[in-house]
């Protein structure tokens, strides 16, 4: 859509007519929807796009077929993918050379091409249509379905999906309290992790008397393994803008800031384009749509600091300072940005607002548990068959998400745990998988809902190593302002490193627990208070695994490098000596009879031999470095001290 064609909308009636026009416009014969968010582009979506454009022109289809470069379709592992509407045919992992066939057969002749379809690698079943795919079965895609037919740079496309009709409704009511009542009644809670009721937050900000008030959209999605907000910002930027305009109207704020982490360049670009379109159309700026209400929006790029996701640190960062959190109270709704009342909500929270206004609070709250309403987007990733961005009704069990939507473990693997909430969350074992996704239930179980990262772990993941990974992350991201977080995280890393080296003692586990409690109680902000969660939940549910590292000096998942070594299976080895040639430490030697073997004294467990051994042989395997430590040999025995020995 040509952006310069956007005319300023001068009244509410004009907006209504526009929405009616675009929503009622006859659909083209076919819509070809190509996923072109960051994941899609990394997998070659733009090459597909140019191949498609060329083909459409060649077959003179450009008028009848509309090619849309949309945002995320959700089945991220199959990018780039193509959906052809109205049938909903789905072609995953497309390559440019396959494009002519798609155009000729499916677009011209209306035939489906089974060879290009998604085939379940395990059952061999061929899936023709997108909503037949297992990943989509149990989802409730209130927010995500909009992405499928929406060009994120087109305001008209957003109108076609009833976009800005919520704003229209709100401005016609001319009653701010009514908006807040409605959001409160819907039961919407903050989607960034803490789950604070959105309606209450807005009311507190509205009640605070002040000349200036601000809104902030928190798009500093720092949890490793989570990308729901990137998905929304890249795929449907207008919904976030509309949510914020409504929020500004309801709370009395005249200015909003969208803070996006700089690791998401495409999200920044799309939000900026959406912002400019809205200014041109008179949906942002002075006297919006001819009413007395004015609202300005600015985009701020983050600069790489996990702590700036914490709201008081975020405020500091928006102000152009170092992202240091500060003591609360006063809460931002009373004294936030530039010392003024400020409402901070997460991207997904803002995106939910127009939906709730449009459909009503009863519609929204019909789904969920007593305290957690509506849907939540999760990024389902890790060791699971199907990975992607999924949206589910709150209250659904973890098992339904992992086993049914995610399809369970890949062949030959066994799921061990699921990690939610990123570095602030914890791991839940399979035995807890019947737990509902609900803010309170997850917290009671020692993890948090978080912003929606859900990482599935199988038996090849070591929980000690994972805890160490998160704590190292916390050390490097701790801002250093308060002692419990700054020193506590470093101390935990020290202890965990010792354990992964096989030099831990049982007392270390108690020490970890104690440290964790102190950090939870004594840290200044959410980062420090939750930083110990990965360790504490690990100790709570996987204590045995920690103890095995300490007592038997073994890593059951064969991950901790100092505790493993490699060996060569003679049954499978073809004596190509690739491993021997590639070993950087000369640790692979030849027996007199010509068989290669690993000299464990020299082996540094780099794993190069495993990688170089041709896949079809698969003769190199991992094994514990230390055999059973028997009872009669005490742990401080010279021979069993682990790799410390010389």
């Amino acid at each position, binding site marked *: 859509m040509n952006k310069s064609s956007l005319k300023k909308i001068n009244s509410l009636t004009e907006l209504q007519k526009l929405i009616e026009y675009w929503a009622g416009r006859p659909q083209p014969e076919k819509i070809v929807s190509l996923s072109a968010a960051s994941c899609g582009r990394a997998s070659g979506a733009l090459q597909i796009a140019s191949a498609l454009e060329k083909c459409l022109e060649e077959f003179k289809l450009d008028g009848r077929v509309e090619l849309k470069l949309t945002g995320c379709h959700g089945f991220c592992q199959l990018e780039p993918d193509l959906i052809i509407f109205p049938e909903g045919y789905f072609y995953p992992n497309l390559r440019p050379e396959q494009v002519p066939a798609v155009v000729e057969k499916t677009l011209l002749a209306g035939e489906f091409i089974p060879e290009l379809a998604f085939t379940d690698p395990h059952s061999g079943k061929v899936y023709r249509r997108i909503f037949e795919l297992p990943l989509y079965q149990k989802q409730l895609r209130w927010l995500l379905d909009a992405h499928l037919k929406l060009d994120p740079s087109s305001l008209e496309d957003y109108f076609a999906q009833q976009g800005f009709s919520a704003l229209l409704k709100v401005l016609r009511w001319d009653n701010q309290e009514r908006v807040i009542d409605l959001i409160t009644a819907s039961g919407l809670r903050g989607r960034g992790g803490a789950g604070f009721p959105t309606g209450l937050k807005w009311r507190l900000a509205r009640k605070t008397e002040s000349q200036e008030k601000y809104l902030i959209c928190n798009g500093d999605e720092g949890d*490793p393994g*989570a*990308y729901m907000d990137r998905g929304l910002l890249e795929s449907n930027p207008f919904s976030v803008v509309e949510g914020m305009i409504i929020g500004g109207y309801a709370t009395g704020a005249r200015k909003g800031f969208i803070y996006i982490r700089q690791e998401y360049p495409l999200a920044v670009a799309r939000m900026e384009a959406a912002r400019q379109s809205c200014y041109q159309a008179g949906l942002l700026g002075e006297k919006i749509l001819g009413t007395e209400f004015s609202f300005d929006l600015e985009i701020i790029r983050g600069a790489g*600091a996990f702590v700036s996701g914490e709201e008081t640190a975020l405020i500091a960062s928006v102000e152009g300072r170092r992202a240091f959190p500060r003591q609360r109270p006063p809460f931002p709704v009373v004294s936030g940005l530039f010392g003024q009342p400020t409402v901070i909500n997460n991207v997904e929270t803002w995106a939910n607002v127009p939906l709730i206004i449009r459909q009503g609070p009863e519609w929204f709250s019909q789904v969920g548990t007593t305290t957690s309403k509506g849907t939540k987007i999760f990024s389902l990733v890790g060791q699971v068959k199907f990975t992607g961005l999924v949206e589910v009704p709150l209250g659904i069990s973890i098992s339904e998400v992992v086993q049914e939507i995610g399809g369970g473990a890949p062949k030959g693997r066994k799921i061990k745990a699921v990690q939610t909430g990123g570095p602030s969350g914890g791991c839940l074992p399979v035995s807890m998988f019947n737990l509902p996704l609900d803010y309170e239930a997850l917290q009671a179980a020692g993890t948090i809902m978080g912003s929606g990262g859900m990482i599935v772990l199988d038996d090849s993941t070591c929980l000690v190593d994972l805890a160490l990974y998160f704590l190292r992350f916390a050390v490097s991201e701790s801002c250093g302002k308060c002692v419990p977080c700054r020193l506590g995280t470093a101390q935990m890393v020290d202890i965990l490193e010792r354990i992964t080296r096989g030099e831990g003692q049982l007392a270390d586990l108690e020490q970890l627990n104690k440290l964790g409690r102190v950090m939870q109680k004594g840290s200044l902000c959410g980062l420090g208070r939750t930083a110990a969660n990965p360790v504490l939940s690990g100790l709570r549910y996987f204590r045995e695994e920690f103890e095995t590292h300490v007592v038997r000096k073994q890593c059951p998942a064969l991950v901790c490098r100092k505790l493993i070594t490699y060996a060569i299976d003679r049954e499978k080895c073809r004596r190509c000596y690739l491993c021997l040639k590639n070993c950087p430490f000369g640790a692979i030697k030849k027996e007199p009879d010509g068989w290669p073997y690993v000299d464990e004294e020299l082996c540094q467990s780099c794993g190069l031999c495993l*990688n170089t051994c041709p896949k079809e042989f698969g003769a190199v395997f991992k094994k514990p470095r230390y055999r059973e430590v028997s009872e009669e040999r005490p742990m401080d025995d010279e021979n069993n001290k682990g790799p410390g020995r010389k």
Partner: protein
Amino acid sequence: MNSNLKPQERIRQLLRHYPRERHHLINFLHLVQAEFGYLPEEVVELLSEHFSVSPAEIFGVATFYSSFRIDRPAEHEIQVCQGTACHVRGAEAILEEFSRQLDKYYGEQNWSGKVSLKKVNCLGCCAISPVAMVDGLLESRVTPAKVKAIVRKLSKNDSPESQRERDEQE
């Protein structure tokens, strides 16, 4: 660098029409970094004047955030994602392999000026993990073999002849 001006002059030029409110500081630092690839030391004093805050404050912000750098960058930048999904799919081994291949193609300890190899916290493409960003382009499902191909391509562009020699040796 798309200008022949000295950093000081170019930054002054950029600042000419830039708002003076403090909260534009980080966005401006992004602008300078996009221009020079790093933050030249002149930035501190000039911005201190422009935004009316102490030089120490500017330096503090410039060094607090991990995406700003105050030293000249290498010609190529490789960022290996260390997000959780990448971690459990072997991101650490990928990082090591990059280092090993760089040693091989550029000579040991010889690549630090030409290539910078960094860890990055989650690039948000977890479903196609492990991922790495090579000169701004995202590489998905990175394997040791792919690492080798990436490094080979980088070094090839750097010096075509030495590459041919290495290829012949293999």
